[in-house]
Structures are given as C-alpha cells and as structure tokens.
C-alpha cells in the first residue's frame, strides 16, 4: 500500500505541470465558492444580527386609533389597551413566552446640575428579556419594585455617560418630572438599533410607577404599547390570531367592527431584509459555482487529454506484471491526492480570501460549512471520477490493446 502511494506521488511529481493545472482547477473553484458564500453569509448575518438585537420573535401591540366624530387619529394615541389586557395575554395565550407592556414618556432628566433629555419607559420585567438588555452594573428591576411602584430606575449607557460622567450612578437620585428616582442599575451597551436609534439612551422604571406618577392618561391603567415574545417563530401566526381573538373579546368588539388595537410582527420586517441578503448570497454562490464548474471542466480536460499517454503507461505496467487492481489503486490514489491537496488548498484560499475581505474591505464574512462541503465534495468528485474513470477503463483492456492505444 505504501509502495503504491509512493508510485502515485512520484507519478504526480513526474507530471508536475499536469498535476499543478488539475490542482489549480480545484483550488480556484473551491476557494471561490467558499469566499463568495462567506461574503454573502456575512452580510445576511449582519442584517439578522441588527434585527435580532431589537428582539426576535416579537409582536408589538399598540392601542388603535380612536375614531371620534369621524376624525381619525394616529395609531397608539388612544387609550384602549390596558395593563389588564396585557396580563390576560400573558396568562391565556399559550404560544406566548413573554410580554412587556410599556408606558413611555419623553422627559428631561436632572442629576445635580446636569440635565439630559431621554425616553423614560415604564415596563415589566419581561422587557429586559425581550429586548435582550443586560445589566452591566447594579441590578435590574424586580417584582418588588413593580408591586410597590418603587421610585427606582435602570439607566442606559448613554444616559449614564451624559448625566453622571465619571460619577458612579448606582445609588444616586435623578429627577424625572420632579420626582426623584434612585438609580439601581446601568444597562450594558447595545449600540444603535436597525433604524439608527441609540438604544442606550433610555431610562427604565417599573410600569406601575410610570402609570401612577409620570403619565397622565384618560384611562389610569392604559399602556402605550407592549412587546410580545412568541415561543417560536413558527408560532407567529397562531400567536397573532390568539391575541387578536382575545383582545377583541375583551374589548367586546362586534364582528363587524374594526380592531381597536394594532398587532405588528417583527419577523415580517426580518423576513424582508434577510430575503434581500439571501438573494445576494445565492447570487454570489451562483457566480462562484460557475467558477467551480469551469474548474471542474478544466480538471476533466486535463485528465481526459492525458488518457492516451496514461493508457500506454497502463499497457506497459500491465505488460510487466501489474494487475488491473494495482492500476486502479494507483490511479485512484493519484486522483485522491490531487483532489484532496487541491481541496485543502482551496479551503485555505477561501478562508484567506474571506479574511482579506473582512480586514481590508471591512465587510463581515462568515465561512459556511455547507459551502465547504459542497465545493470540496464537488471538485473531489470531479477529480476522482475523471482521474479514475479512464484508468478504470484502460485497466479492463488486454495489455496489448492498452499498449497500442492511440
């Protein structure tokens, strides 16, 4: 076996030009596919990442527009959605994992002699989970805060920086609409949202506190909106239907009346955007596949062109005592060695190209295992098939016919 391996290696070495050309076909084909798919994948990962940083599996519920005397007002300005509605959803809809009602208001924040305008949001514990906020310093809000409508706040990184500078915010009091709130935690920075908003420019307080002290509303219990997290993306539609039915029932809407609330599905947006990048990945992959195909045809050409020479070689080897099996093993090994070396080199080239694109063009890339498998598999198949097939056929000839092969 080692002997045949040596024969194969020396045969490849003896035909350096042919071996190099064959390998080049594999290397370029595999490398191109891997790099192209990596570029496309990188782009869609980035888009998905941006969107999922806003929270995936999400539905936003907002109160509907009041329709008073024919004058329609904007969505969300009504007071038709209550905290009880949200709690009902949390308890009764089985496809829901988490809900976070929100009461928001814009307010000037004051700490000692500094001030900063920001969005103050009253919400429940589920909010941190849904929006994937994590605490960096101090603690998040808890049930006690909510039950007791405690005057405590968790602030975003931007607020902490603008208001406190180098001072440790934990335990300090900030004033919101002249009401003092104790800062109990600072959130880990999340950066910009998909729409370009600074997600760290925020103050979060218990929803009960916000309802009682910060927001004056027609309905004491009303909320501005609610995030709803669905257990699984596949349950999105059933969750929407469940909530719609429940809210319509709770709001006692006759079947001919319009919804007095609005359900918006975040995955719809996610889908649109990932669709676009997926198309790009596919396109890049298709272009690269063509180069893989061309590489494959190159391999095929070189292998088939050398058939005459190789068939004579096979004839000579058989004439001096090689068995058909020896011939096949030798050629299989040659083809394997070529394809594998070429495949590995191609994978490395693909990785290097992806890295280069990331480093020099600042374009995120993500090398896909599937692309590696498909590209390497295809070129190995082509290399082995066209390397072995003519040899296989020649090994079935009588030695004299192989020797006389023209």
């Amino acid at each position, binding site marked *: 076996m080692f*002997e045949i391996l040596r024969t194969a290696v020396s*045969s490849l070495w003896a035909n350096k030009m042919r071996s190099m050309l064959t390998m080049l076909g594999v290397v370029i084909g595999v490398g191109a596919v891997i790099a192209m798919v990596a570029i496309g994948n990188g782009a869609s990962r980035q888009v998905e990442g941006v969107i999922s940083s806003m929270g995936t599996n999400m539905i936003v519920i907002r109160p509907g527009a009041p329709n008073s005397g024919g004058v329609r007002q904007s969505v969300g300005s009504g007071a038709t959605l209550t905290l009880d509605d949200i709690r009902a959803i949390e308890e009764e809809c089985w496809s829901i994992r988490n809900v976070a009602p929100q009461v928001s208001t814009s307010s000037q924040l004051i700490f000692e002699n500094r001030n900063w305008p920001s969005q103050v949001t009253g919400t429940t514990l589920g909010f941190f989970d849904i929006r994937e906020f994590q605490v960096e310093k101090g603690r998040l809000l808890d049930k006690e805060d909510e039950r007791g409508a405690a005057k405590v706040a968790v602030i975003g990184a931007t607020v902490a920086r603008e208001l406190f500078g180098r001072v440790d915010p934990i335990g300090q009091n900030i004033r919101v609409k002249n009401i003092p709130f104790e800062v109990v935690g600072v959130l880990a920075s999340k950066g910009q949202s998909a729409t370009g908003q600074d997600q760290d420019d925020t103050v979060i307080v218990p929803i009960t506190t916000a309802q009682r002290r910060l927001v004056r509303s027609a309905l004491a219990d009303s909320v501005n909106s609610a995030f709803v997290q669905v257990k699984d993306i596949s349950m999105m539609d059933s969750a929407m239907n469940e909530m719609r039915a429940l809210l319509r029932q709770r709001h006692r809407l006759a079947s001919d009346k319009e919804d007095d609330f609005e359900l918006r599905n975040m995955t719809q947006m996610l889908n649109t955007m990932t669709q676009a990048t997926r198309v790009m990945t596919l396109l890049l992959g298709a272009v690269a596949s063509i180069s893989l195909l061309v590489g494959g045809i190159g391999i095929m050409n070189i292998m088939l062109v050398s058939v005459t020479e190789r068939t004579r070689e096979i004839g000579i080897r058989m*004439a*001096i*005592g090689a*068995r058909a099996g020896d011939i096949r093993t030798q050629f299989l090994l040659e083809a394997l060695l070529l394809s594998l070396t070429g495949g590995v080199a191609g994978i490395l080239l693909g990785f290097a190209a992806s890295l280069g694109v990331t480093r020099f063009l600042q374009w995120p890339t993500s090398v896909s295992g599937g692309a590696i498998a498909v590209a390497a598999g295809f070129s190995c198949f082509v290399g082995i098939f066209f390397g072995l097939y003519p040899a296989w056929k020649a090994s079935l000839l*009588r030695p004299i016919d192989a020797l006389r092969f023209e």
Partner: protein
Amino acid sequence: MTPLIEVKDLVKTYRSGDSELRALDGVSFAIERGEFVAIMGPSGSGKSTTMNMLGCLDSPTRGVYMLDGKDVSGLSGDELARIRNVNLGFVFQGFNLLPRLDALDNVALPLVYAQVEPRERAERATRALEKVGLGSRMRHRPSQMSGGQQQRVAIARALVGDAPLILADEPTGNLDTKTSEEIMNLLVQINSEGKTVILVTHEPDIAGYASRVLRFKDGKLVADKKQTPENGKRGEGYV
C-alpha cells in the same frame, strides 16, 4: 521433461464489422528450454500475434498454450499478470519504457509488482543494468538515451525478474545495423547463460543469430528449421 512452451491448434480471429479476420489459423509447436528461436514471416503472417499470445498480452480465441507444463489459455487477468511478471520478460520494438522514470526505476518496475523490498529492487536493477552495459547511465531518463541504450534498458527490465523466458518482438526494428548487432549479441549472451529466447523479426540477418527458425505465412506455421547460427559471434560475449 515437458517443453517450456507447447502450443496446440492456436487460433486467433479478429472481428471487424461483419468480416472475420483469421490472424492465426491452427498453429502448433513446442519450444524446449535453452533454445534461441526466431519467428519469421511477412507482415500479416501472424508472427506478432503469436508473440503476443506467448507473452500473455493477448489471449487466443481457441487452442491450448502450455507454459512450463501449465495451461495458461484459461487463466484470469490477475493470474496472467503474475505470469508476465514472474515467468517471462518482454522486449518490444518500441522499447515501451516509462518516459518519466529513469533507467533504474524503469528496470525496477517489474519488481514493484512482484512485491520486492525497495532495497533489494535497487540492487537487482543495478545488477541488471550493469549486465547490459549501462552501469553508468542508471539515472538517465529514456529521452536522454539513444535507441540502443533504451533497448538495453528494456532488456535489463526483462531480465530483472530472473524469468526463464525472454520474448523479443522485433527488438532491432527501430535501430541501425551496428546497434542491432550489439543488441543481438546481448540476446545471444543471455541465451548462452541458459535463458530461452524467442524473437520475432522479418530480417534474415537477425534471424541468423537463432538456432531455430519458425516461418509463418497467412496465419499458419509453414516451416520449422533448426540451424547453426550463421552470424557466428556466439561465445564472444558482450561488453
């Protein structure tokens, strides 16, 4: 003792389209150990076909071929490969060396398929090359050697497995007269050392080195004569 080679009623037909070509039409003969036999005849007489059968490069359509008392006409491809490897050495008109291997590797190639250890292979190939007078050109490739030298490499390759039978199909067909003489003297020397040599040629001069001549015509054996080698260079040896 059984003859080294015994063929009975050997028939070989080639089919091309509807017509059938009889290349060999019932040939029988026997060759004893140590003989030096020349097979002669015009082209298309069946002499090369006979040679390919004897060398197990081709198989007969009908008939029996006993090599060393063993019937080889019904053997499988692998068994025939073993016979080509162990029992005989073949020298071709066109040398048939592997162009990308040097002389030593070309000569050692049969030993690879005989599963001989690399070190022993090199030793035996070196000895075979020295025997044919190419001890100084072992690392040359075929393209760096003259026709006569290439043919001597091919003879060394036929000798390296120490087979009792050397088959040479027009070994001087591609060589000039002087080189032909050298090659023939080498074959004579090999024969004098006990090997059976069978040679195909259409040149009477070349056939003159042999001690027996088989003449073929139209696929049939028409004459089988023993003779005293004319070109009396036997015993001179080869340098």
